């Protein structure tokens, strides 16, 4: 029988026992809805967790160090570290390395970690402060989500963003609200690293000749001098409390990265330049590499390791999180599928009933020239149609359940003074997969009734009253 005729006859047969077939289809729909609701919840929770981590600016970043054993400062757990250096020797993390890493596929940007300490003078008071330079790409990170005011207006704008607690500390003596500091100017005092004057000419090396400050140069002598400098910074933003600090968490006050680099501040690793052999270029303490998506972290990390550098990636810690969600999704899927399995019994029951009711009709069809295959296909088509329709309805129902969960969760969170989260997500693959799975389960459920109908002896079937 042609496909069109098969579909028409199946549709007609389904319409004949409308109530029973509708109830069976509804059973499938409920099964699919439970599967979709369960999985969409799992997917939604996973997306919330991933999004939070990505927005925190951690999941798409790799921190590159030159030394193989560096584990960061301070106590507490450290992210796992990968090293490409078999000998344990450190590779120079210089401008050349930065350029090479920047050329790797899927790498969006590479920038040095610039953090230093200094003093801030405001309203007649001086406060010790840690300063962090942040790249323009951080504008979209979660760290700046709750900013009052604005992000930096330019790459090296002489502007500063203050955490609200620090702003409160600065403004209290002046009896101001932290928000009142927006637009005010404070003075940052910091130690500038300056090249030594040439013993021969008395000239200082130009800062642009040594981007990270003066490296060792026999003409200019070994070492550097330190000068106290001041920079006026306008307050453009006040930040709500930041999430727990990661390896690149902003410091107490935040300034544009390009400005921070141009200040040529003395950093912790600068003393190593003094002992470096003449002719060697100066190096970065560490580099931050941002890739296009969390999925690109592993390949980029491998490529950087192969270049001989040590890397740290918060993504490594997330693997256990992903394993947790994989297990959660699996269990949610199993529970959701149970309802569909029960619904498949409904299909078997409906079709077996249909065989009993349509016994004579099957005999007539065979007498008119239907083969066993035609009868089998007809019952398969009916099972498939119920599965397909049930699948589509189920996805719609599951979507509605998900919306209800989302609605309820949002209200609950808001009542507890928390931001509403979309803990439910129905990706396209879940829609296609759920409908496909419903179709597959329905066809599987139709195997026995279809085979039984096809095997009917036409002579006996024609005698059936």
């Amino acid at each position, binding site marked *: *029988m*042609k496909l*069109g*005729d098969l579909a028409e*006859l199946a549709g*007609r047969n389904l319409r*004949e026992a409308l109530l029973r077939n509708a109830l069976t289809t509804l059973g499938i729909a409920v099964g699919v809805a439970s599967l979709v609701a369960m999985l969409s919840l799992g997917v939604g929770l996973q997306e919330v967790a991933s999004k939070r981590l990505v927005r925190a600016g951690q999941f798409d970043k790799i921190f590159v160090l030159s030394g193989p054993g560096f584990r960061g400062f301070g106590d507490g757990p450290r992210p796992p570290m990968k090293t490409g250096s078999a000998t344990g020797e450190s590779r120079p993390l210089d401008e050349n390395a930065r350029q090479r890493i920047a050329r790797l596929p899927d790498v969006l940007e590479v920038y040095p970690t610039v953090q230093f300490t200094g003093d801030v003078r405001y309203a007649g008071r001086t406060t010790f402060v840690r300063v962090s330079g942040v790249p323009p790409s951080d504008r979209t990170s979660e760290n700046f989500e709750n900013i009052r005011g604005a992000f930096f207006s330019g790459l090296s704008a002489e502007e500063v963003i203050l955490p609200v607690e620090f702003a409160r500390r600065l403004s209290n003596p002046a009896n101001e609200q932290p928000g009142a500091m927006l637009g005010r100017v404070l003075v940052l005092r910091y130690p500038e690293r300056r090249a030594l004057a040439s013993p021969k000419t008395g000239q200082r090396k130009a800062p642009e000749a040594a981007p990270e400050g003066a490296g060792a140069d026999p003409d200019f002598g070994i070492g550097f001098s330190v000068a106290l400098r001041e920079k006026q910074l306008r307050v453009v933003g006040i930040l709500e409390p930041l999430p727990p600090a990661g390896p690149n968490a902003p410091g107490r006050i935040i300034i544009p990265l390009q400005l921070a680099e141009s200040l040529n501040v003395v950093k912790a690793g600068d003393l190593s330049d003094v002992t470096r052999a003449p002719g060697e270029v100066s190096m970065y303490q560490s580099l931050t590499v941002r890739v296009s998506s969390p999925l690109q972290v592993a390949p980029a990390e491998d490529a950087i390791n192969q270049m001989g550098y040590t890397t740290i990636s918060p993504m490594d810690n997330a693997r256990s999180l992903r394993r947790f969600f994989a297990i959660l999704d699996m269990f949610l899927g199993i529970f959701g599928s149970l309802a569909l399995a029960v619904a498949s019994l409904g299909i078997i029951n409906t079709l077996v009933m249909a065989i009993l009711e349509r016994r*004579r*009709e099957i*005999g*007539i*069809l*065979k*007498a*008119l*020239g*239907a*083969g*066993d*295959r*035609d009868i089998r296909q007809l019952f398969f088509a009916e099972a498939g149609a119920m599965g397909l329709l049930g699948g589509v309805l189920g996805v719609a129902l599951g979507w509605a359940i998900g919306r209800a969960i989302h609605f309820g969760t949002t209200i609950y969170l808001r009542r507890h003074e928390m931001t509403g989260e979309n803990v439910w997500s129905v990706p396209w693959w879940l829609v296609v997969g759920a409908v496909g799975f419903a179709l597959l389960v329905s066809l599987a459920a139709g195997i026995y009734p279809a085979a039984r109908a096809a095997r009917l*002896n*036409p*002579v006996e079937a*024609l005698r059936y009253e």
Partner: protein
Amino acid sequence: MSDSNGLAIRTESISRHYAMGTSLIRAVDEVTLEVRAGEFVALLGSSGSGKSTLLNLIAGLDRPTSGAIYAHGRDLARMNPQELARHRSRTVGMVFQAFNLLPRMTLEENVELPLRLAEADRGERDARVRAALERVGLGARLSHRPGELSGGEQQRAALARALVNRPTILLADEPTGNLDSRTGEEILNLLREFNQSSQASPGMTVVMVTHERALADRYAHRIVFLADGRLVEREGSG
């Protein structure tokens, strides 16, 4: 259409036995029968004589326990289920005592059913269905359901359905059994008309099962008697 000997149907010692408990039912037993192409043969016998079983064997609805059945020279016993289905679809048309129209379908849909099963071209179907129904005088009842028709009309619709695929053999199992005598005669007149006016030279072969001797005498070329599954007598008729 016939084999080289001009036969539409030939059975060679066919038997159809059923096991029922410990006893063996010989529904058809060693029957050898030849039906010429274009012949109108009546199978006559009492209830349980095996005439319907023989008709089902010729139709390819049942398989013989032993022996061979040839339809236009092709052995039905050697056909696989798909080939048998094709034989039922293309070579034979069947009419039953109980009409066996599908009550949920209109006459048009009922008559179209064999065309669907034979995978006939959709463009041709409508015309063929109308032609078949007009031929039995039901051209104006296309959209009626069987329940809205009289017994005679239902049997005529069943005839249209049997003819729509242009079979060469028409098998009728007690076609007048559920009809009054006048309506029964109308149906048999139609059967004779098909038998005589078929474009297939030398005419459509008709095998009719009946227990009414008078009708068989009037319409069939030949009467074949069955008793206890065996052929007991052959008789020519006017």
